[in-house]
Protein backbone atom coordinates (compact mmCIF):
# COMPACT_ATOMS: atom_id res chain seq x y z
CA UNK A 1 0.00 0.00 0.00
CA UNK A 2 2.78 2.37 0.91
CA UNK A 3 4.69 1.29 -2.18
CA UNK A 4 1.71 1.86 -4.39
CA UNK A 5 1.26 5.25 -2.89
CA UNK A 6 4.89 6.06 -3.50
CA UNK A 7 4.56 5.00 -7.15
CA UNK A 8 1.48 7.11 -7.50
CA UNK A 9 3.25 10.06 -5.94
CA UNK A 10 6.15 9.62 -8.30
CA UNK A 11 3.89 9.63 -11.25
CA UNK A 12 2.02 12.66 -10.04
CA UNK A 13 5.16 14.68 -9.60
CA UNK A 14 7.30 13.44 -12.50
CA UNK A 15 4.88 14.38 -15.29
CA UNK A 16 4.81 18.12 -14.57
CA UNK A 17 8.50 18.15 -13.89
CA UNK A 18 9.25 16.42 -17.17
CA UNK A 19 6.89 18.77 -18.97
CA UNK A 20 8.59 21.71 -17.38
CA UNK A 21 12.01 20.46 -18.32
CA UNK A 22 10.96 19.85 -21.92
CA UNK A 23 9.20 23.20 -22.11
CA UNK A 24 12.21 24.96 -20.67
CA UNK A 25 14.46 23.29 -23.20
CA UNK A 26 12.22 24.45 -26.06
CA UNK A 27 12.03 27.90 -24.59
CA UNK A 28 15.76 28.10 -24.33
CA UNK A 29 16.11 26.96 -27.87
CA UNK A 30 13.66 29.46 -29.22
CA UNK A 31 15.03 32.31 -27.19
CA UNK A 32 18.59 31.63 -28.04
CA UNK A 33 18.62 31.75 -31.84
CA UNK A 34 16.14 33.19 -34.47
CA UNK A 35 13.41 30.83 -35.41
CA UNK A 36 11.20 30.97 -38.62
CA UNK A 37 8.19 32.44 -36.82
CA UNK A 38 10.34 35.10 -35.32
CA UNK A 39 11.78 35.90 -38.73
CA UNK A 40 8.31 36.13 -40.20
CA UNK A 41 7.28 38.37 -37.35
CA UNK A 42 10.30 40.58 -37.93
CA UNK A 43 9.49 40.84 -41.60
CA UNK A 44 5.92 41.76 -40.82
CA UNK A 45 7.05 44.36 -38.27
CA UNK A 46 9.30 45.90 -40.91
CA UNK A 47 6.41 45.79 -43.31
CA UNK A 48 4.02 47.51 -40.91
CA UNK A 49 6.36 50.49 -40.86
CA UNK A 50 6.46 50.71 -44.66
CA UNK A 51 3.01 51.20 -46.10
CA UNK A 52 2.78 50.05 -49.63
CA UNK A 53 5.67 47.58 -49.35
CA UNK A 54 3.56 44.47 -49.00
CA UNK A 55 5.14 42.48 -51.75
CA UNK A 56 7.61 40.74 -49.55
CA UNK A 57 8.59 37.34 -50.69
CA UNK A 58 8.84 35.14 -47.62
CA UNK A 59 10.09 32.22 -49.71
CA UNK A 60 13.41 34.07 -49.72
CA UNK A 61 13.67 33.06 -46.09
CA UNK A 62 13.84 29.45 -47.29
CA UNK A 63 11.71 28.20 -44.46
CA UNK A 64 10.96 24.54 -44.05
CA UNK A 65 8.00 22.42 -43.15
CA UNK A 66 5.00 24.18 -41.68
CA UNK A 67 6.74 27.50 -41.85
CA UNK A 68 7.39 26.94 -45.52
CA UNK A 69 3.66 26.30 -46.08
CA UNK A 70 2.86 29.40 -44.06
CA UNK A 71 5.23 31.54 -46.07
CA UNK A 72 3.74 30.31 -49.36
CA UNK A 73 0.25 31.10 -48.09
CA UNK A 74 1.49 34.49 -47.08
CA UNK A 75 2.93 35.08 -50.51
CA UNK A 76 -0.38 34.19 -52.19
CA UNK A 77 -2.19 36.53 -49.86
CA UNK A 78 0.30 39.29 -50.61
CA UNK A 79 -0.08 38.69 -54.36
CA UNK A 80 -3.86 38.89 -54.12
CA UNK A 81 -3.76 42.07 -52.06
CA UNK A 82 -1.33 43.60 -54.57
CA UNK A 83 -3.65 42.64 -57.44
CA UNK A 84 -6.63 44.10 -55.63
CA UNK A 85 -4.70 47.30 -55.03
CA UNK A 86 -3.73 47.57 -58.69
CA UNK A 87 -7.36 47.10 -59.66
CA UNK A 88 -8.37 49.75 -57.18
CA UNK A 89 -5.83 52.18 -58.62
CA UNK A 90 -7.05 51.46 -62.13
CA UNK A 91 -10.59 52.07 -60.96
CA UNK A 92 -9.60 55.37 -59.40
CA UNK A 93 -7.97 56.47 -62.62
CA UNK A 94 -11.12 55.51 -64.47
CA UNK A 95 -13.29 57.29 -61.96
CA UNK A 96 -11.25 60.47 -62.34
CA UNK A 97 -11.50 60.17 -66.10
CA UNK A 98 -15.25 59.65 -65.79
CA UNK A 99 -15.53 62.60 -63.47
CA UNK A 100 -13.69 64.74 -66.00
CA UNK A 101 -15.94 63.47 -68.77
CA UNK A 102 -18.94 63.98 -66.49
CA UNK A 103 -17.93 67.56 -65.76
CA UNK A 104 -17.37 68.12 -69.46
CA UNK A 105 -20.76 66.58 -70.26
CA UNK A 106 -22.49 68.69 -67.64
CA UNK A 107 -20.86 71.83 -69.05
CA UNK A 108 -21.65 70.71 -72.56
CA UNK A 109 -25.26 69.96 -71.64
CA UNK A 110 -25.70 73.32 -69.91
CA UNK A 111 -24.12 75.07 -72.88
CA UNK A 112 -26.40 73.16 -75.23
CA UNK A 113 -29.49 73.94 -73.16
CA UNK A 114 -28.49 77.60 -73.08
CA UNK A 115 -28.03 77.71 -76.81
CA UNK A 116 -31.40 76.12 -77.57
CA UNK A 117 -33.71 78.51 -79.35
CA UNK A 118 -36.44 77.30 -77.01
CA UNK A 119 -36.79 78.37 -73.42
CA UNK A 120 -36.51 75.58 -70.86
CA UNK A 121 -37.66 75.71 -67.26
CA UNK A 122 -37.37 72.73 -64.95
CA UNK A 123 -40.07 72.73 -62.32
CA UNK A 124 -40.17 70.47 -59.25
CA UNK A 125 -43.30 69.02 -57.70
CA UNK A 126 -43.36 71.93 -55.25
CA UNK A 127 -43.75 74.10 -58.40
CA UNK A 128 -40.36 75.67 -57.67
CA UNK A 129 -38.13 76.43 -60.66
CA UNK A 130 -34.88 74.48 -60.47
CA UNK A 131 -33.35 75.43 -63.80
CA UNK A 132 -33.82 78.11 -66.43
CA UNK A 133 -31.85 78.30 -69.66
CA UNK A 134 -30.73 81.49 -71.40
CA UNK A 135 -33.63 81.46 -73.88
CA UNK A 136 -36.10 81.23 -71.00
CA UNK A 137 -34.43 84.24 -69.34
CA UNK A 138 -34.62 86.20 -72.58
CA UNK A 139 -38.21 85.18 -73.37
CA UNK A 140 -39.46 85.97 -69.90
CA UNK A 141 -37.30 89.08 -69.56
CA UNK A 142 -35.90 87.93 -66.21
CA UNK A 143 -32.42 86.98 -65.03
CA UNK A 144 -31.68 83.41 -63.96
CA UNK A 145 -31.76 84.31 -60.26
CA UNK A 146 -35.17 85.87 -60.81
CA UNK A 147 -36.41 82.51 -62.07
CA UNK A 148 -34.56 79.75 -60.24
CA UNK A 149 -35.93 79.30 -56.73
CA UNK A 150 -39.17 81.11 -57.60
CA UNK A 151 -42.50 79.38 -57.88
CA UNK A 152 -43.70 78.93 -61.44
CA UNK A 153 -46.97 80.51 -60.31
CA UNK A 154 -45.10 83.78 -59.69
CA UNK A 155 -43.79 83.74 -63.24
CA UNK A 156 -46.99 82.98 -65.13
CA UNK A 157 -50.27 84.52 -64.11
CA UNK A 158 -51.84 81.11 -63.94
CA UNK A 159 -51.89 78.67 -61.06
CA UNK A 160 -50.37 75.91 -63.23
CA UNK A 161 -51.30 73.67 -60.30
CA UNK A 162 -52.03 70.83 -62.68
CA UNK A 163 -48.31 70.53 -63.41
CA UNK A 164 -48.20 68.43 -60.27
CA UNK A 165 -50.47 65.85 -61.84
CA UNK A 166 -49.63 63.43 -64.66
CA UNK A 167 -52.17 65.40 -66.72
CA UNK A 168 -49.85 68.38 -66.34
CA UNK A 169 -47.68 66.93 -69.05
CA UNK A 170 -50.52 67.65 -71.48
CA UNK A 171 -50.07 71.39 -70.98
CA UNK A 172 -49.91 73.28 -74.25
CA UNK A 173 -50.91 76.89 -73.83
CA UNK A 174 -50.03 80.29 -75.13
CA UNK A 175 -49.22 83.05 -72.69
CA UNK A 176 -48.55 86.70 -73.14
CA UNK A 177 -45.45 87.75 -71.20
CA UNK A 178 -46.03 91.02 -69.34
CA UNK A 179 -42.37 92.04 -69.07
CA UNK A 180 -41.38 91.57 -72.70
CA UNK A 181 -44.73 91.70 -74.49
CA UNK A 182 -43.77 88.47 -76.23
CA UNK A 183 -46.24 85.71 -76.96
CA UNK A 184 -44.95 82.42 -75.59
CA UNK A 185 -46.25 78.95 -76.22
CA UNK A 186 -45.72 76.68 -73.24
CA UNK A 187 -45.49 72.91 -73.49
CA UNK A 188 -44.86 70.57 -70.58
CA UNK A 189 -43.19 67.18 -70.31
CA UNK A 190 -42.79 65.10 -67.15
CA UNK A 191 -39.25 63.86 -66.67
CA UNK A 192 -37.98 60.90 -64.66
CA UNK A 193 -37.81 61.19 -60.90
CA UNK A 194 -34.24 61.85 -59.82
CA UNK A 195 -33.52 61.99 -56.12
CA UNK A 196 -35.56 65.09 -55.37
CA UNK A 197 -38.79 63.89 -56.98
CA UNK A 198 -40.30 64.13 -60.44
CA UNK A 199 -39.68 67.27 -62.46
CA UNK A 200 -41.61 68.90 -65.22
CA UNK A 201 -39.76 70.34 -68.16
CA UNK A 202 -41.48 73.42 -69.55
CA UNK A 203 -40.56 74.28 -73.13
CA UNK A 204 -41.15 77.88 -74.12
CA UNK A 205 -41.47 78.85 -77.74
CA UNK A 206 -41.57 82.46 -78.83
CA UNK A 207 -44.59 82.67 -81.09
CA UNK A 208 -44.56 86.48 -81.36
CA UNK A 209 -43.49 86.17 -84.99
CA UNK A 210 -46.61 84.09 -85.73
CA UNK A 211 -48.73 86.85 -84.27
CA UNK A 212 -46.77 89.39 -86.32
CA UNK A 213 -47.21 87.26 -89.43
CA UNK A 214 -50.94 87.06 -88.79
CA UNK A 215 -51.08 90.82 -88.30
CA UNK A 216 -49.04 91.37 -91.46
CA UNK A 217 -51.40 89.10 -93.38
CA UNK A 218 -54.43 90.97 -92.00
CA UNK A 219 -52.84 94.31 -92.92
CA UNK A 220 -52.07 92.98 -96.39
CA UNK A 221 -55.68 91.82 -96.91
CA UNK A 222 -57.01 95.09 -95.52
CA UNK A 223 -54.88 97.12 -97.93
CA UNK A 224 -55.66 94.86 -100.86
CA UNK A 225 -59.41 95.12 -100.34
CA UNK A 226 -59.13 98.89 -100.02
CA UNK A 227 -57.00 99.21 -103.12
CA UNK A 228 -59.35 96.95 -105.08
CA UNK A 229 -62.47 98.76 -104.00
CA UNK A 230 -61.88 102.10 -105.69
CA UNK A 231 -61.27 100.82 -109.23
CA UNK A 232 -64.13 98.34 -108.80
CA UNK A 233 -66.46 101.11 -107.63
CA UNK A 234 -65.49 103.24 -110.60
CA UNK A 235 -65.89 100.46 -113.15
CA UNK A 236 -69.26 99.49 -111.72
CA UNK A 237 -70.55 103.07 -111.46
CA UNK A 238 -69.41 104.18 -114.94
CA UNK A 239 -70.62 100.97 -116.62
CA UNK A 240 -74.02 101.43 -115.02
CA UNK A 241 -74.06 105.07 -116.04
CA UNK A 242 -73.51 103.99 -119.63
CA UNK A 243 -76.02 101.15 -119.59
CA UNK A 244 -78.74 103.30 -117.98
CA UNK A 245 -78.23 106.03 -120.56
CA UNK A 246 -77.74 108.69 -117.92
CA UNK A 247 -75.37 110.60 -120.20
CA UNK A 248 -75.97 111.49 -123.81
CA UNK A 249 -73.30 113.85 -125.13
CA UNK A 250 -70.37 112.29 -126.91
CA UNK A 251 -67.67 113.81 -124.68
CA UNK A 252 -69.28 112.57 -121.46
CA UNK A 253 -69.74 109.11 -122.95
CA UNK A 254 -66.10 109.01 -124.04
CA UNK A 255 -65.04 110.08 -120.55
CA UNK A 256 -67.07 107.21 -119.08
CA UNK A 257 -65.36 104.68 -121.34
CA UNK A 258 -61.96 106.17 -120.54
CA UNK A 259 -62.58 105.93 -116.80
CA UNK A 260 -63.54 102.27 -117.18
CA UNK A 261 -60.43 101.56 -119.30
CA UNK A 262 -58.20 103.50 -116.91
CA UNK A 263 -59.58 101.78 -113.83
CA UNK A 264 -59.25 98.36 -115.46
CA UNK A 265 -55.59 99.15 -116.10
CA UNK A 266 -55.23 100.27 -112.48
CA UNK A 267 -56.69 96.94 -111.35
CA UNK A 268 -54.33 94.98 -113.59
CA UNK A 269 -51.33 96.95 -112.31
CA UNK A 270 -52.42 96.35 -108.74
CA UNK A 271 -52.79 92.62 -109.33
CA UNK A 272 -49.36 92.54 -111.04
CA UNK A 273 -47.75 94.50 -108.21
CA UNK A 274 -49.25 92.33 -105.50
CA UNK A 275 -48.16 89.16 -107.28
CA UNK A 276 -44.74 90.62 -107.91
CA UNK A 277 -44.11 91.70 -104.33
CA UNK A 278 -45.44 88.40 -102.95
CA UNK A 279 -43.22 86.34 -105.24
CA UNK A 280 -40.17 88.49 -104.54
CA UNK A 281 -40.75 88.30 -100.81
CA UNK A 282 -41.25 84.56 -100.91
CA UNK A 283 -38.10 84.23 -103.03
CA UNK A 284 -40.07 82.40 -105.72
CA UNK A 285 -39.74 85.16 -108.32
CA UNK A 286 -37.81 83.91 -111.33
CA UNK A 287 -35.43 86.41 -112.81
CA UNK A 288 -34.95 86.17 -116.53
CA UNK A 289 -31.28 87.05 -116.52
CA UNK A 290 -29.68 88.50 -119.61
CA UNK A 291 -27.25 91.24 -120.54
CA UNK A 292 -29.03 94.49 -119.82
CA UNK A 293 -27.78 97.65 -121.49
CA UNK A 294 -28.40 100.07 -118.66
CA UNK A 295 -27.97 103.20 -120.78
CA UNK A 296 -30.75 102.09 -123.10
CA UNK A 297 -32.95 101.02 -120.20
CA UNK A 298 -32.53 104.36 -118.39
CA UNK A 299 -33.25 106.31 -121.57
CA UNK A 300 -36.43 104.31 -122.15
CA UNK A 301 -37.66 104.83 -118.59
CA UNK A 302 -37.05 108.58 -118.72
CA UNK A 303 -38.70 108.82 -122.12
CA UNK A 304 -41.79 107.00 -120.83
CA UNK A 305 -42.03 109.35 -117.84
CA UNK A 306 -41.48 112.51 -119.87
CA UNK A 307 -45.18 113.07 -120.60
CA UNK A 308 -46.15 112.93 -116.90
CA UNK A 309 -43.28 115.27 -116.01
CA UNK A 310 -44.27 117.76 -118.71
CA UNK A 311 -47.89 117.62 -117.60
CA UNK A 312 -46.81 118.50 -114.05
CA UNK A 313 -44.26 121.07 -115.23
CA UNK A 314 -41.44 119.09 -113.64
CA UNK A 315 -38.08 119.09 -115.41
CA UNK A 316 -36.85 115.53 -115.97
CA UNK A 317 -33.12 115.23 -116.75
CA UNK A 318 -31.04 112.17 -117.61
CA UNK A 319 -27.25 112.61 -117.36
CA UNK A 320 -25.25 109.58 -118.43
CA UNK A 321 -21.47 109.20 -118.50
CA UNK A 322 -19.88 108.30 -121.87
CA UNK A 323 -19.73 104.64 -120.93
CA UNK A 324 -22.42 102.83 -119.02
CA UNK A 325 -21.79 99.14 -118.28
CA UNK A 326 -24.06 96.33 -119.34
CA UNK A 327 -25.11 94.32 -116.34
CA UNK A 328 -26.50 90.84 -115.85
CA UNK A 329 -30.10 91.06 -114.74
CA UNK A 330 -33.79 90.84 -115.51
CA UNK A 331 -34.47 93.69 -117.92
CA UNK A 332 -38.24 93.86 -117.36
CA UNK A 333 -37.95 93.82 -113.59
CA UNK A 334 -35.17 96.42 -113.58
CA UNK A 335 -37.35 98.59 -115.82
CA UNK A 336 -40.14 98.32 -113.22
CA UNK A 337 -37.71 99.35 -110.45
CA UNK A 338 -36.51 102.45 -112.29
CA UNK A 339 -40.00 103.33 -113.52
CA UNK A 340 -41.21 103.20 -109.92
CA UNK A 341 -38.36 105.40 -108.70
CA UNK A 342 -38.54 107.96 -111.49
CA UNK A 343 -42.37 107.84 -111.39
CA UNK A 344 -42.37 108.54 -107.64
CA UNK A 345 -39.87 111.37 -108.08
CA UNK A 346 -42.12 113.04 -110.67
CA UNK A 347 -45.26 112.29 -108.65
CA UNK A 348 -43.96 113.79 -105.41
CA UNK A 349 -42.25 116.82 -106.95
CA UNK A 350 -44.35 119.96 -107.18
CA UNK A 351 -44.54 122.05 -110.36
CA UNK A 352 -41.35 123.91 -111.14
CA UNK A 353 -39.17 121.30 -109.51
CA UNK A 354 -36.81 118.92 -111.20
CA UNK A 355 -35.88 115.25 -111.24
CA UNK A 356 -32.39 114.14 -112.22
CA UNK A 357 -31.33 110.61 -113.11
CA UNK A 358 -27.57 109.97 -113.06
CA UNK A 359 -25.34 106.95 -112.99
CA UNK A 360 -21.74 106.07 -112.27
CA UNK A 361 -19.64 102.93 -111.94
CA UNK A 362 -16.47 101.88 -110.16
CA UNK A 363 -15.72 98.69 -112.10
CA UNK A 364 -17.52 96.41 -109.67
CA UNK A 365 -20.76 98.25 -109.07
CA UNK A 366 -23.14 100.46 -110.96
CA UNK A 367 -24.88 103.23 -109.05
CA UNK A 368 -28.04 104.82 -110.37
CA UNK A 369 -29.29 107.93 -108.60
CA UNK A 370 -32.76 109.39 -108.85
CA UNK A 371 -32.72 112.81 -107.21
CA UNK A 372 -35.76 115.07 -106.88
CA UNK A 373 -36.65 118.45 -105.41
CA UNK A 374 -39.94 117.05 -104.13
CA UNK A 375 -41.81 117.06 -100.86
CA UNK A 376 -39.23 114.77 -99.19
CA UNK A 377 -39.76 112.01 -96.64
CA UNK A 378 -39.83 112.65 -92.90
CA UNK A 379 -37.11 110.87 -90.85
CA UNK A 380 -39.77 108.78 -89.04
CA UNK A 381 -41.19 107.58 -92.36
CA UNK A 382 -37.82 106.83 -93.99
CA UNK A 383 -37.21 103.40 -92.43
CA UNK A 384 -40.72 102.28 -93.39
CA UNK A 385 -41.15 103.51 -96.97
CA UNK A 386 -39.90 100.19 -98.34
CA UNK A 387 -42.59 98.26 -96.43
CA UNK A 388 -45.40 97.14 -98.65
CA UNK A 389 -48.51 99.33 -98.52
CA UNK A 390 -46.73 101.81 -96.28
CA UNK A 391 -47.21 105.41 -97.31
CA UNK A 392 -45.77 108.41 -95.51
CA UNK A 393 -48.23 109.75 -92.99
CA UNK A 394 -48.94 113.23 -94.23
CA UNK A 395 -51.63 115.13 -96.02
CA UNK A 396 -49.62 115.87 -99.12
CA UNK A 397 -48.91 112.19 -99.68
CA UNK A 398 -52.52 111.25 -98.95
CA UNK A 399 -53.63 113.55 -101.78
CA UNK A 400 -51.40 111.74 -104.26
CA UNK A 401 -52.69 108.35 -105.37
CA UNK A 402 -50.48 105.35 -104.77
CA UNK A 403 -50.66 101.83 -103.39
CA UNK A 404 -47.47 101.84 -101.35
CA UNK A 405 -46.17 98.85 -103.29
CA UNK A 406 -43.72 100.51 -105.71
CA UNK A 407 -40.79 100.86 -103.31
CA UNK A 408 -41.38 97.42 -101.79
CA UNK A 409 -41.13 95.92 -105.28
CA UNK A 410 -38.07 98.05 -106.08
CA UNK A 411 -36.25 96.95 -102.94
CA UNK A 412 -37.07 93.27 -103.34
CA UNK A 413 -36.07 93.31 -107.01
CA UNK A 414 -32.77 95.06 -106.35
CA UNK A 415 -32.05 92.56 -103.54
CA UNK A 416 -32.78 89.68 -105.89
CA UNK A 417 -30.10 91.17 -108.17
CA UNK A 418 -27.62 91.24 -105.29
CA UNK A 419 -27.82 94.99 -105.01
CA UNK A 420 -28.99 97.59 -102.53
CA UNK A 421 -31.28 100.57 -102.55
CA UNK A 422 -30.70 103.56 -100.30
CA UNK A 423 -32.60 106.66 -99.45
CA UNK A 424 -31.42 110.10 -98.41
CA UNK A 425 -34.19 112.61 -97.91
CA UNK A 426 -35.12 115.83 -96.21
CA UNK A 427 -38.68 116.91 -95.69
CA UNK A 428 -39.53 119.82 -97.98
CA UNK A 429 -36.19 119.63 -99.82
CA UNK A 430 -36.33 116.39 -101.81
CA UNK A 431 -35.25 112.78 -101.92
CA UNK A 432 -32.44 110.80 -103.51
CA UNK A 433 -32.80 107.07 -104.11
CA UNK A 434 -29.56 105.26 -104.97
CA UNK A 435 -29.68 101.83 -106.55
CA UNK A 436 -26.38 99.92 -106.44
CA UNK A 437 -26.10 96.87 -108.67
CA UNK A 438 -23.14 94.52 -109.00
CA UNK A 439 -21.70 94.55 -112.52
CA UNK A 440 -20.45 90.98 -112.22
CA UNK A 441 -17.71 89.12 -114.02
CA UNK A 442 -19.77 88.51 -117.12
CA UNK A 443 -20.51 92.20 -117.46
CA UNK A 444 -19.70 93.73 -120.77
CA UNK A 445 -18.88 97.41 -120.91
CA UNK A 446 -21.11 98.96 -123.51
CA UNK A 447 -20.92 102.46 -124.87
CA UNK A 448 -23.69 104.98 -124.42
CA UNK A 449 -24.00 105.45 -128.17
CA UNK A 450 -25.20 101.88 -128.56
CA UNK A 451 -28.30 102.58 -130.59
Amino acid at each position, binding site marked *: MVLADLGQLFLLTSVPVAAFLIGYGVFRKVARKPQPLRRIAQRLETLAGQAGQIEIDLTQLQLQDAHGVLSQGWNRLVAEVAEARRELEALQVRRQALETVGRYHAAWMTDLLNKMPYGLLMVGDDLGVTFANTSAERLLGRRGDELVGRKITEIFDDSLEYLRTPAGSMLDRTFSVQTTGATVRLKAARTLAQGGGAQTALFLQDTSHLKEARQARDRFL*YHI*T*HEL*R*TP*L*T*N*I*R*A*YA*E*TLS*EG*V*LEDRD*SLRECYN*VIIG*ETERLSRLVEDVLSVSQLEAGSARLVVDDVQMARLLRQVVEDMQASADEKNVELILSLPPKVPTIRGDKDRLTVVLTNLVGNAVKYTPAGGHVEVTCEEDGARLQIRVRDTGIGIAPEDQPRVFEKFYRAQN*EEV*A*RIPGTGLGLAIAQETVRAHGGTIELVSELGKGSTFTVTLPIGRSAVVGVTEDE
Partner: protein
Amino acid sequence: MAVIVIAEDEVHIARVVGVWLRKGGHVVYEANDGRSALELIRRHHPELLIADVNMPVMDGIELVTTCAATGQPRGGIIVLTSRCDQTEIRRRLKGLNVVFHPKPFSPSRLTQEVERLLARSQDVVGTTGTSRR
Protein backbone atom coordinates in the same frame (compact mmCIF):
# COMPACT_ATOMS: atom_id res chain seq x y z
CA MET B 1 -84.96 119.39 -105.59
CA ALA B 2 -82.45 119.24 -102.77
CA VAL B 3 -78.93 120.51 -102.07
CA ILE B 4 -76.47 117.63 -101.58
CA VAL B 5 -72.74 117.66 -100.66
CA ILE B 6 -70.48 114.78 -101.72
CA ALA B 7 -67.22 114.27 -99.80
CA GLU B 8 -65.07 111.80 -101.74
CA ASP B 9 -61.35 111.98 -102.55
CA GLU B 10 -61.67 109.71 -105.57
CA VAL B 11 -62.54 112.28 -108.22
CA HIS B 12 -64.18 109.81 -110.61
CA ILE B 13 -66.50 108.50 -107.90
CA ALA B 14 -67.51 112.00 -106.79
CA ARG B 15 -68.15 112.96 -110.42
CA VAL B 16 -70.34 109.95 -111.31
CA VAL B 17 -72.44 110.32 -108.15
CA GLY B 18 -72.82 114.01 -109.04
CA VAL B 19 -73.97 113.10 -112.56
CA TRP B 20 -76.71 110.79 -111.25
CA LEU B 21 -77.95 113.20 -108.58
CA ARG B 22 -78.02 116.20 -110.95
CA LYS B 23 -79.97 114.04 -113.40
CA GLY B 24 -82.48 113.63 -110.53
CA GLY B 25 -82.77 117.42 -110.36
CA HIS B 26 -80.61 118.07 -107.30
CA VAL B 27 -77.95 120.70 -106.73
CA VAL B 28 -74.68 118.91 -105.98
CA TYR B 29 -71.42 120.22 -104.50
CA GLU B 30 -68.32 118.00 -104.59
CA ALA B 31 -65.41 118.08 -102.12
CA ASN B 32 -62.24 115.94 -102.18
CA ASP B 33 -61.54 116.02 -98.46
CA GLY B 34 -63.39 116.36 -95.18
CA ARG B 35 -62.43 119.95 -94.45
CA SER B 36 -63.55 121.25 -97.86
CA ALA B 37 -66.81 119.33 -97.40
CA LEU B 38 -67.34 120.97 -94.02
CA GLU B 39 -66.81 124.36 -95.68
CA LEU B 40 -69.40 123.54 -98.40
CA ILE B 41 -71.89 122.41 -95.74
CA ARG B 42 -71.50 125.67 -93.79
CA ARG B 43 -71.95 127.71 -96.95
CA HIS B 44 -74.78 125.83 -98.67
CA HIS B 45 -76.72 124.17 -95.81
CA PRO B 46 -77.43 120.96 -97.77
CA GLU B 47 -80.29 118.55 -97.07
CA LEU B 48 -77.94 115.61 -97.38
CA LEU B 49 -74.26 114.64 -97.09
CA ILE B 50 -72.70 111.67 -98.86
CA ALA B 51 -69.29 110.95 -97.30
CA ASP B 52 -66.44 108.55 -97.97
CA VAL B 53 -64.47 107.35 -94.93
CA ASN B 54 -60.83 107.40 -96.07
CA MET B 55 -60.02 110.96 -97.09
CA PRO B 56 -57.02 113.22 -96.65
CA VAL B 57 -56.91 116.27 -94.36
CA MET B 58 -60.08 115.33 -92.47
CA ASP B 59 -61.46 111.82 -92.74
CA GLY B 60 -65.10 110.82 -93.03
CA ILE B 61 -65.43 109.91 -89.36
CA GLU B 62 -64.32 113.33 -88.18
CA LEU B 63 -66.45 115.06 -90.81
CA VAL B 64 -69.57 113.11 -89.87
CA THR B 65 -69.14 113.53 -86.11
CA THR B 66 -68.52 117.27 -86.56
CA CYS B 67 -71.64 117.62 -88.72
CA ALA B 68 -73.81 115.50 -86.45
CA ALA B 69 -72.84 117.64 -83.47
CA THR B 70 -74.44 120.68 -85.15
CA GLY B 71 -77.46 118.74 -86.45
CA GLN B 72 -76.33 119.21 -90.05
CA PRO B 73 -77.44 118.25 -92.65
CA ARG B 74 -81.13 117.96 -91.80
CA GLY B 75 -81.88 115.07 -94.17
CA GLY B 76 -79.15 112.82 -92.84
CA ILE B 77 -75.80 111.43 -93.85
CA ILE B 78 -74.89 108.53 -96.13
CA VAL B 79 -71.48 106.97 -95.35
CA LEU B 80 -69.86 105.05 -98.19
CA THR B 81 -67.89 102.16 -96.77
CA SER B 82 -66.84 98.63 -97.52
CA ARG B 83 -68.53 95.79 -95.73
CA CYS B 84 -65.29 94.76 -94.00
CA ASP B 85 -64.89 98.19 -92.35
CA GLN B 86 -68.50 98.61 -91.32
CA THR B 87 -68.30 97.08 -87.85
CA GLU B 88 -65.57 99.45 -86.69
CA ILE B 89 -67.09 102.48 -88.40
CA ARG B 90 -70.59 101.71 -87.09
CA ARG B 91 -69.10 101.53 -83.60
CA ARG B 92 -67.43 104.91 -83.98
CA LEU B 93 -70.51 106.58 -85.44
CA LYS B 94 -72.98 104.92 -83.07
CA GLY B 95 -76.04 106.97 -82.20
CA LEU B 96 -75.66 109.38 -85.12
CA ASN B 97 -78.19 109.93 -87.90
CA VAL B 98 -76.14 107.93 -90.39
CA VAL B 99 -77.00 105.43 -93.12
CA PHE B 100 -74.27 103.08 -94.40
CA HIS B 101 -73.99 102.33 -98.08
CA PRO B 102 -71.63 99.57 -99.20
CA LYS B 103 -68.77 100.27 -101.57
CA PRO B 104 -68.45 99.34 -104.48
CA PHE B 105 -71.97 100.62 -105.05
CA SER B 106 -74.51 100.90 -107.79
CA PRO B 107 -75.20 104.61 -108.57
CA SER B 108 -78.90 103.84 -109.17
CA ARG B 109 -79.23 102.21 -105.74
CA LEU B 110 -77.39 105.11 -104.13
CA THR B 111 -79.77 107.50 -105.88
CA GLN B 112 -82.74 105.50 -104.56
CA GLU B 113 -81.28 105.72 -101.05
CA VAL B 114 -80.90 109.49 -101.44
CA GLU B 115 -84.53 109.83 -102.54
CA ARG B 116 -85.73 107.68 -99.64
CA LEU B 117 -83.87 109.80 -97.10
CA LEU B 118 -85.06 113.06 -98.66
CA ALA B 119 -88.67 111.81 -98.66
CA ARG B 120 -88.39 110.87 -94.98
CA SER B 121 -86.92 114.26 -94.20
CA GLN B 122 -89.74 116.01 -96.12
CA ASP B 123 -92.30 114.03 -94.10
CA VAL B 124 -90.74 115.17 -90.85
CA VAL B 125 -90.61 118.79 -92.04
CA GLY B 126 -94.21 118.49 -93.30
CA THR B 127 -95.48 117.11 -90.01
CA THR B 128 -93.68 119.78 -88.04
CA GLY B 129 -95.13 122.41 -90.40
CA THR B 130 -98.69 121.12 -89.91
CA SER B 131 -98.45 121.11 -86.15
CA ARG B 132 -97.24 124.68 -86.18
CA ARG B 133 -100.27 125.80 -88.12
